[in-house]
């Protein structure tokens, strides 16, 4: 490990320790006064802290695939954390302008980008079967994007499993359909 990597790991470790401490303080506050958005605030910092742990591990782990997974996990946790923070701000605030922020977050998620592009191709494509396949595929990306944000609520896991399964099934059907055409040709 070089000096740069060591510095990154050290900074990540300090950040995660501080975020876990802040999360703990707000969790204890919630337990005493039971204000909903305080627990959401605590969750935000717990997610950011966990994200920094994942980021540290991504540097330390020698196996490239695992390292990449941890690296991706760190940014996913950060985006989920900020989404939860937005929820707590919305919960506490009456300012309508904040309502615009969650859709903006959704738009920048990779799954949502895939959804929008596949939807565009669906609109431009010709042929009933092709349109049908692309429509289901884009829907699967939409559900997967939403699921990554809803993971903290529990329902996100089921949405993710449903989107993956539907995507695989429709891909199989479509591959068979294309194969039929290729063989005919």
């Amino acid at each position, binding site marked *: 490990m070089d000096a740069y990597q060591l510095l990154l790991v050290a900074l990540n470790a300090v950040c995660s320790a501080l975020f876990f401490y802040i999360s703990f303080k707000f969790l204890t*506050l919630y337990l*005493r*006064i039971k*204000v909903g*958005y305080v627990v959401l605030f605590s969750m935000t910092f717990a997610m950011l802290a966990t994200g920094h742990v994942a980021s540290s591990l991504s540097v330390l782990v020698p196996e490239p695939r695992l390292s990449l997974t941890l690296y991706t996990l760190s940014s996913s946790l950060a985006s989920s954390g900020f989404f939860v*923070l937005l929820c707590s*701000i919305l919960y*506490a*605030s009456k*300012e309508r302008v904040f309502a615009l922020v969650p859709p903006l977050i959704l738009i920048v998620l990779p799954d949502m980008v895939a959804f929008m592009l596949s939807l565009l191709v669906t609109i431009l494509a010709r042929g009933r079967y092709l349109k049908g396949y692309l429509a289901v595929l884009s829907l699967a990306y939409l559900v997967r994007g939403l699921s990554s944000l809803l993971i903290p609520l529990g329902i996100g896991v089921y949405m993710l499993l449903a989107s993956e399964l539907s995507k695989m099934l429709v891909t199989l059907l479509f591959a068979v359909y294309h194969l039929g055409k290729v063989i005919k040709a």
Partner: protein
Amino acid sequence: MKKRNRLELVLEMLEVINEEGEINPTKLSLKVNLSYDRVKRILNELAEKGLLMTVPSDERKGSVVIALTPKGANLLRELRRLKSLLEDYGLL
């Protein structure tokens, strides 16, 4: 007047109780500008958690006043510290 959320109400109530030392719920409701029923409900919840205690009033015989317990005073100190962070995020 800006609508206060629950956390703001709890903080304001604890601040008033701390300033007064001992206060009856009616006077508290006037000080924090909140209905007596709402104040009473919050006070009961805080008392259940051991943050407040009721003591017999010195001024009026038979009535009770409320005061902060050491645990309540501790919560107030913590709330003051966390307040600035919550304010920064627009949560207070």
